[in-house]
């Protein structure tokens, strides 16, 4: 029983990371109807920036904030300078561009920071174990930071005029332009915010899985499974899906398939959702006339 509880709580902790990345994927998807396959590698790259800042002597939270700002600028600039040019291109072009970005950021991380596995500090390490050894201090901190960030994102979209304008621009660009919303800028803001979410997920998960250029590859897959499970166009669904996948992964790994085959669970979830319920648990079924 203790083992089961431990696996569940630990699953919720990694699930928080998947939830954040899943939300980033959904934000970009809702705005552009394309998945950003480079979301994970951009996050890894940002995590290296954080590590460089910390190694240069910056206090952890200063490095954390600077990295988030850097990621925002990176995401914003990528949309404005690169993705924008392919806005009218067919769907496969956008997929190609984002896979190209994935390869570029993966290679850039290795080239600039080395391919060896690195340790990444945690700001929560001092306490050791909490809750009778069921979870580590870092796992609690990781969930806490992620929840704060998710709540902040929710409040931003729900209660601020800019958040409302971003939702409007994603849902109905033509009407948004007619009320004076600069739709292009809103899409770039969405990319920037998604990159911030990714970078925070990267910094939070790096102490657990260690930092190397491929760190986010598996995590992106789990996050993708979570986003699909919740509904690829539903932000709240993606967050719930992310947590669910974290728990499923951990319990499945412990009791069903073993840790070696955990990633397969993500692929099974993806395949099962696409076959059985393509809109996900909370998504809307879109009927398109073709």
């Amino acid at each position, binding site marked *: 029983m203790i083992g089961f509880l431990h696996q569940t709580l630990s699953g919720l902790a990694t699930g928080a990371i998947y939830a954040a990345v899943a939300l980033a994927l959904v934000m970009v998807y809702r705005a552009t109807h394309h998945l950003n396959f480079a979301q994970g590698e951009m996050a890894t790259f940002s995590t290296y920036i954080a590590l460089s800042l910390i190694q240069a002597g910056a206090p952890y939270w200063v490095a954390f904030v600077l990295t988030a700002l850097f990621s925002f600028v990176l995401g914003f600039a990528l949309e404005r300078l690169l993705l924008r040019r392919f806005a009218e291109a067919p769907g496969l072009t956008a997929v190609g561009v984002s896979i190209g970005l994935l390869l570029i950021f993966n290679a850039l991380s290795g080239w600039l920071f080395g391919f060896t596995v690195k340790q990444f500090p945690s700001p929560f390490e001092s306490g050791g174990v909490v809750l009778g050894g069921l979870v580590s201090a870092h796992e609690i901190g990781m969930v806490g930071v992620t929840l704060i960030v998710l709540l902040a994102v929710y409040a931003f979209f729900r209660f601020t*005029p800019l958040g409302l*304008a971003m*939702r*409007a621009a994603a*849902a*109905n660009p033509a009407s948004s*332009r007619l*009320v*004076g919303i600069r739709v292009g800028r809103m899409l770039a803001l969405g990319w920037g915010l998604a990159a911030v979410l990714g970078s925070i997920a990267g910094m939070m998960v790096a102490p657990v899985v260690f930092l190397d250029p491929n760190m986010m590859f598996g995590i992106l897959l789990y996050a993708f499974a979570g986003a699909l499970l919740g509904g690829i166009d539903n932000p709240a669904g993606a967050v719930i899906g992310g947590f669910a996948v974290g728990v499923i992964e951990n319990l499945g790994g412990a009791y069903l398939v073993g840790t070696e085959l955990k990633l397969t669970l993500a692929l099974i979830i993806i395949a099962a959702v696409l076959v059985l319920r393509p809109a996900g648990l909370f998504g809307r079924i879109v009927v398109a006339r073709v």
Partner: protein
Amino acid sequence: MPALLDIRDLHAGYGAGEVLHGIALSVESGGVTALLGANGAGKTTTLRAICGMLPRSGEISFDGARIDAATTEAIARSGIAHVPDGRGTFLDLTVEENMRLGAYIRRDRGVAADIARFCALFPVLGARFHQQAGTLSGGEQQMLAIARALLSRPRLLLLDEPSFGLAPLIVQQLFATLAQIRAESGIGILLVEQNAGLALDFADHACILEAGRIALAGTAAALAADAQVRRVYLGY
């Protein structure tokens, strides 16, 4: 005094197909110009071209400044509000959010009071304030579209078939309201309307579009008295 909106030799269309072949029209400051014509004559295309929603060439001046190369969002910000064909409702957002978006470009403190005013004017919007706008009926969405457009406090209002989907009684109320808003704020209106009798009653000037060209233009009273206009558009 120069016109609020002045259009000269406007060409526009969709891709390779040109719909407007060089039209000219104007809206006086505080005036109403009605744009009449059969289906497919280019009325909606004219409004879209003014707002930069499709490729266009020619000269469009708003308040003395050329806007024929401006983006849609810049045109909206300069003071032109558009009640588009199909109503342009933000279906996933609430009625309240739709109205707030209408006032998106405003930075003054009067937005809440204006929203309350339109809820009083269209009580159904007040009653469904927190509901998803996609659940409104077509007529209710039409009211919402008009409220959304007016909430930007525009100097020029482009109305594409405002009576579409509305019950006759509501249409009367709507035009009475528009007349009131016009009297209060001195807003100019370019009105596209199927109901030619209603439009000519409301407008000072009118143009008739035929196959992408202005076939007839003049004061609304002169057009309403024109024998051919009466026969073709008014039916008596």
